């Protein structure tokens, strides 16, 4: 089976196309059929429960066919007993009175579900496509394009090296000392000196540079082309189709450590001895009977254990909190990670990097504007405050004065200037936050835009005098002027990915200064031991080494 093939069906694209054209010949909705087919495949692979499948398409099926006799949650166990395979039993339900031919049935239910069903029929007919799900097995590569890919944009200029993310990660996942899934370091190289030499010249704004250090924040990069996954001899290291997270199945890993060898970033940590936190004490296992309570251990669709610290003898690394993404820690935690939540200056923006409206995408594509939005949105007065304090004909200065003098708000020219610049800069871009998670930047931008709109009811912010007051007159073109103003405020960070030339296609993007090839770590603003973290794990491991002699090394 070609791994490049992006078809969802194990028999490949051609097969799908054939079935799709078959479906096109019917009076039924091809698109619905293909969508159902895709999910039906996922049912056969155990990624989706039958009940979920049923629920997802109930309305559409009713609309299309006028009936929906597929197995429901209640019918689930009975269907299992029939042991005819998911697809076959689903087909039967469609088949209703049993008088329709197989082909008609297939057409009726939609080509996709039929494609799955063919597997079951093919077994009897000795067709080439027998036992589809078995042939496919647990997947190594992403074969279907999901529209979700969790990832991060990390603003290194905003990182003040407080290590809150590291401790949060460690607590969330019950990690051993020295197992630093999230790792934050300060660094220097020839072109970028550290705090000791003072004066970084990369940026020119008050806004960023929360510390004098060059920082690097290193979670797992959750690469699209993950070398660790490629080399794994067991498929324990795998990429989840539904959201691109690269995870380790703790029940399959044999502990050969080849993933750690192949990872160019050094994000893996092996469990050399028994973990400090016993299995029973892992968070979220208080009520093992309630599946929604199992947040950490025994996890992923109830089948694969991928979250929290690893047991002895297997590999672990940053997971980007899959139990949160799957809603097992409450809806409010979907689209967040422990490190993101813990980060005081919001340097970490986690979300769906394929969604243009998501925080990581916004931060990556419009770093200057997004920084400004994150920084000023809390200080922006609400439209009500504007309405009740400003009257027609007020000058800009008077309006600012009027708002600033109230108890409800603080306002200065800089805030207005930056808000106006944001408004100008967002004219040609997506502004609708949508209803997905991780859209806080666009939501915050909405707040800013509402303020600008409210203020402009009374004051012309694009008049010559207003532009002068707001420092938006450096160049004639107002778009360029806005950009310059925002850069003055928030800097204009370059973006990069770590080791881009290695070809791993990481899903973490950085804003700020890229460490050169000779960059080396230096002591950062916060010492690891001050926040109860162990940096050099070898110090701990050496204690248990049989016949260890201090200071002797190859």
């Amino acid at each position, binding site marked *: 089976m070609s791994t490049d093939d992006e078809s969802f069906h194990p028999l490949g694209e051609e097969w799908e196309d054939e079935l799709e054209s078959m479906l096109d010949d019917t009076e039924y909705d091809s698109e619905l059929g293909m969508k159902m087919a895709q999910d039906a495949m996922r049912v056969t692979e155990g990624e989706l429960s039958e009940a979920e499948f049923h629920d997802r398409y109930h309305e559409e099926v009713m609309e299309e066919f006028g009936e929906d006799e597929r197995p429901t949650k209640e019918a689930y166990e009975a269907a299992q007993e029939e042991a005819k395979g998911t697809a076959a039993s689903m087909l039967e339900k469609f088949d209703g009175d049993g008088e329709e031919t197989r082909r008609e049935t297939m057409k009726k239910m939609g080509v996709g579900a039929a494609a799955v069903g063919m597997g079951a029929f093919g077994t009897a007919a000795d067709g080439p496509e027998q036992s589809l799900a078995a042939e496919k097995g647990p997947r190594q590569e992403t074969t279907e394009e999901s529209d979700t890919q969790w990832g991060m944009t990390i603003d290194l200029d905003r990182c003040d090296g407080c290590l809150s993310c590291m401790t949060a990660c460690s607590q969330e996942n019950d990690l051993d000392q020295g197992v630093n899934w999230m790792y934050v370091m300060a660094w220097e190289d020839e072109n970028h000196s550290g705090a000791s030499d003072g004066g970084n010249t990369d940026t020119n704004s008050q806004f960023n540079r929360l510390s004098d250090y060059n920082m690097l924040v290193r979670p797992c990069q959750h690469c699209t082309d993950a070398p660790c996954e490629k080399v794994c001899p*067991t498929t324990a290291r795998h990429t989840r189709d539904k959201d691109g997270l690269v995870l380790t199945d703790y029940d399959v890993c*044999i502990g*050969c450590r080849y993933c*750690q*060898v192949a990872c160019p970033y050094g994000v893996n940590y*092996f469990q050399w001895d028994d973990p400090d936190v016993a299995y029973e004490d892992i968070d979220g296992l208080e009520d093992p009977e309630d599946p929604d309570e199992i947040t950490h251990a025994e996890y992923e669709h109830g089948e694969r254990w991928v979250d929290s610290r690893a047991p002895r003898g297997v590999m672990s690394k940053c997971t980007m909190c899959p139990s949160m993404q799957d809603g097992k820690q409450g809806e409010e935690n979907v689209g967040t990670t422990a490190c993101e939540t813990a980060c005081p200056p919001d340097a970490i923006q986690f979300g769906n990097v394929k969604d243009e409206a998501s925080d990581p995408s916004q931060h990556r594509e419009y770093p200057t504007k997004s920084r400004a939005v994150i920084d000023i949105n809390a200080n922006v007065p609400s439209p009500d405050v504007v309405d009740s304090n400003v009257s027609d004909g007020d000058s800009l200065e008077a309006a600012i004065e009027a708002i600033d003098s109230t108890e409800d708000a603080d306002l200065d020219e800089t805030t207005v200037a930056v808000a106006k610049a944001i408004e100008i800069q967002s004219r040609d871009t997506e502004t609708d936050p949508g209803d997905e998670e991780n859209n806080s930047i666009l939501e915050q931008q909405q707040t800013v835009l509402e303020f600008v709109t409210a203020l402009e009811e009374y004051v012309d912010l694009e008049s010559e005098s207003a532009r002068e007051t707001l420092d938006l007159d450096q160049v004639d073109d107002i778009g360029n002027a806005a950009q310059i103003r925002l850069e003055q405020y928030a800097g204009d960070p370059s973006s990069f990915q770590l080791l881009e030339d290695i070809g791993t296609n990481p899903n973490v993007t950085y804003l700020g200064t890229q460490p050169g*090839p000779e960059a*080396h770590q230096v002591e950062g603003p916060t010492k690891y031991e001050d926040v109860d973290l162990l940096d050099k*794990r070898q110090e701990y491991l050496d204690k248990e080494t049989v016949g260890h002699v201090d200071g002797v090394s190859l």
Partner: protein
Amino acid sequence: MSTKEPTEADILRPINTLTKKYFILYGAAALGLVAFLIAWAYQLQQGLIVTGLGDWGSGGGSTWGLYIGAFIWWVGVAHGGIILSAAVRLLGMDRYMPIARLAEMTTIGGLSAAGFYILVHMGRPDRMVTSVIGHYHITVNNSPLVWDVTVITAYFVLSATYLGLTLRYDISRLRDDLPDMFEPVYKIMTIGYSEKEDQVIDRMVWWLAAAVIIMAPLLLHGGVIPWLFALLPAMPAWSGGIQGPMFLSIALMSAISGVMIISYAFRRAYDWDHIITDDIFRGLLLWLGFFTLLFLWFQLQANINGVFLGPTNSAVAAEAKMAHPLYQLAMGMAFLTLVYIFLQAIRPSLFSKKRALVASVAILSATLTEKILFVVEGFLHPTFDIYANTPGTYFPSAIEWLSLVGTAGLVALLFLNLSKLVPVVELHAIEHMRGDHGHSDDATEQEVEA
């Protein structure tokens, strides 16, 4: 050279004698193996933390170490052994016929030791079957480690078949002089034997030998084993197309040295001066010199490519490797051995079997050192070496060192056991040395003699 005529009695001597020295050696080898098995049990109980290994990166350790280094070293010995034997058959190097079977047995021993290392190295060896074989059809498309296990298994089957087929000829002819207590084993090994098959077996063995010779450089020690390392994207100490030839040269050096040591031991123990002759040692020494020369040449290529205007990452890795005292020691040993081999070639009086033995031990130590260093160097100087704790530290723990003793004991036990069961020198070889050519003819003759 000895004037004594080699006889069947000569090659049967190991089987039909039982000496005190044998028991002492057997006890020592068994003790080594058992000691390591106990150590391994402790490792299984405590976890791999009892080794000197750790996490590369922020952890300041080395992910792989002696276990993997020794693993590829043993695989090298094994691969070289079978190449040696195949060359004898395929290229008609009749001079080395008396040691061909020792080389094949070295292969079986080496592969056993290597396979054992795979288990010892794992965090969860209990899952080998379910996790590896269960997903084989997927992982074989990607994982060099799975390719590795695949070719090693293929190789083991190939070598065992090869050895098993050639043993049928000997056992069926010498059966009357073989101990009765192993009768069932001999029965199974010679099941369905008839003299008519000799020619067929000859052909089969020839083709197997051809397969070995073709597979070895392409797939085995010139391919899949170095690919475990050379294909990884960000470990400059390992990368480069030179690793294939490099690994192959190391395999041949190690195997020739290993076979020389084993041959020396058998010759001494069973007075085989007239079978494993000085001539064989001289010849092996020359081959050893040839492959050592190649090896040093490849090392030069690898280093020059790094240190002279190399990209930052490979320059750092190459410079660090060259500066390592153990690397210098290993290369020094190899170079001095090469010098000795060269000198004894132009002045034959410099040859002695003891010196050949010393040369073999030096080369084996050099290749083992190089292998372990090679593995560790990768983690010490990765492309992404921003971490303050990289390069990390690693020194093998007592348990890891003991694994060398254990696996050496395992291989020694294999030889000690096999030498009591079957002739370790082929009947063909002594027939050849006596000058009886043509199998069908002398087969009849022998029957008359018997």
